[in-house]
């Protein structure tokens, strides 16, 4: 270094001001307008009305996206093929959240799961049947989609996921 000098100290600040002055302010985040392209979702949402699940497949790496995606991040290719997906799934991972009722003060345990549908390569976030005991949930648990009686063409048409016994042939072959 050019000069071997000590830097002047700024220690005097603390002696002068013991506390800082507080001014309140707020941001209004609700006034933003986020834009999304939803054209690639139309076939998917229409099929949901018929209680059927579809996903789109990347023609380059053959990964199936559920819900559909506009671009495959691995190949930078537009997935253009629609494939059917089964309504059975597995619990990919889960967490249990503890929700406190503001009125009664009762704490409700609720497992939040990431479901991995059979035939898809992605996970999506979902809810389990509230009757399932929290302690029974495990990673890899087989589950099945439970549809609402009246469908409107949205992901909420799947009310929740139910537990079921997986006796498909795949399991036997795996063993």
């Amino acid at each position, binding site marked *: *270094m050019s000069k071997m000098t000590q830097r002047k100290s700024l220690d005097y600040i603390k002696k002068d001001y013991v506390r800082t002055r507080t001014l309140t302010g707020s941001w209004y985040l609700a006034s933003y307008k*986020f834009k*999304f392209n*939803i054209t690639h979702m139309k076939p998917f949402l229409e099929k949901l009305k018929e209680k059927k699940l579809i996903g789109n497949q990347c023609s380059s790496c053959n990964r199936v*996206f559920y819900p559909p995606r506009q671009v495959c991040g691995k190949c930078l290719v537009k997935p253009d093929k629609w494939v059917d997906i089964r309504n059975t799934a597995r619990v*990919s991972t889960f967490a*249990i959240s503890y929700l406190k009722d503001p009125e009664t003060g009762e704490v409700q345990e609720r497992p939040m799961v990431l479901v991995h549908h059979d035939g898809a390569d992605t*996970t999506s976030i*979902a809810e389990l049947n509230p009757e399932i005991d929290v302690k029974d949930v495990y990673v890899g648990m087989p589950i099945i989609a439970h549809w609402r009686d009246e469908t409107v063409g949205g992901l909420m048409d799947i009310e929740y996921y139910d537990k079921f016994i997986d006796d498909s042939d795949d399991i036997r072959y795996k063993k």
Partner: protein
Amino acid sequence: MGRQVAIASAGFSEHASKRSDVSMPELVSEAIEDCLKNAPGVEIGDIDAFVNGNMPAFEGSNIPELWMTDWMGARNKPLLRVTTGGTTGGTVAISGYYTVAAGLPGIDTVLAVAFEQQSQGDTSVGLASVAYGEISILNTLGIPYEQISRLLSAGAAIGVAAYQATTYMNKTKIKEEDLARVVVQNRRNAAKTWWAHLKMPNLTIEEVLDTPYVQYPLRYGMVCPASDGACAMLFTTEEKAKDICDIPVYVNGVASVANETAVLGYDGSGSCQIDPSMQLGAIRSAELTYSQAGISFPRKEIDYAEVYSPFPNQELMWVEKLGLFEEATAPEMYEAGVTAVNGELPVNCSGGVNATNAIGASAMERPAEAALQIMGKASNQVPKTVHTSIGSGWGGSLNLITLMAMSDQPRRKF
């Protein structure tokens, strides 16, 4: 082709949950002063350029780097602000490195500053602004906003980290005691570090397990605090560093790798990372950094590691993913005391993010502390001589990893 860069000094401000005695510029000035105290040959006029960063929107002020220019001594000098969410600190450090490595005429000494004053603003609003853009697409799929906020009820970081913890615990077959052991080690280490926030010298595993769940499997006693604090690092060239300090720390490798967002995915469309604890980004960043630094056997060659771990399961995960331990063996190493201060491979002797988390600054405190351990100036100095160390950062939606490998020998391969 780039040139060798050295860290001449690093400094911290004092961390606390509410630093109500200082404003944000004063907090930054405190860290810079501590940084320059370690390098008495440098005065503020000798610094050629500044890099600055914090988490956007967390303390409610835009362009903070401009209104603290005078407090940094950056007036009429090149100034750059970088912000990448949770890894801001790591990216600021890497930008400081790049600024010197570029070899531009007249830019030899660069001061990198990262800071956060969370008590000033509403962190949950900041997090909402990060997540809202991703969440809104779910509205178009027919899920109402109330439903989503219930699904992700515990909020951004812990909401996703809990999923990660479940898969990690399932994969390694560990219990909550193993997670609590990591917390106990970190908070006891923090008690010996002057700038750390949560100092608990007598914490026990039972006390951690006694606290209620925030979100299964993470308990209240296991999660990181919200701190106010700042960190500064001084980057300079190889030649100048030899004049400034006794033991210059050479930056031998840097990487900043983003993988696909886990759990929610881009546009809320799900993630191809079926296992959120897989973390391909971390593995890739370790590959890049070690190849630049010429590290072939990380376990043997690295003497000290600072990993970014707000939650204990992540500390176990990162030391495995960054190549320090074999898959699924980290919990045993913590039990055996390999990672303790006097162990074979000390990890997070400053207490880590688990004890101090000023979000914008904490990813920079990792390489800063790792550098101070090589210089022998850290407040919780390990007894053995440290030759090579690493400091990592983690952020985004479980997907961005920054890593910096340092050594007392210039080994960067260009």
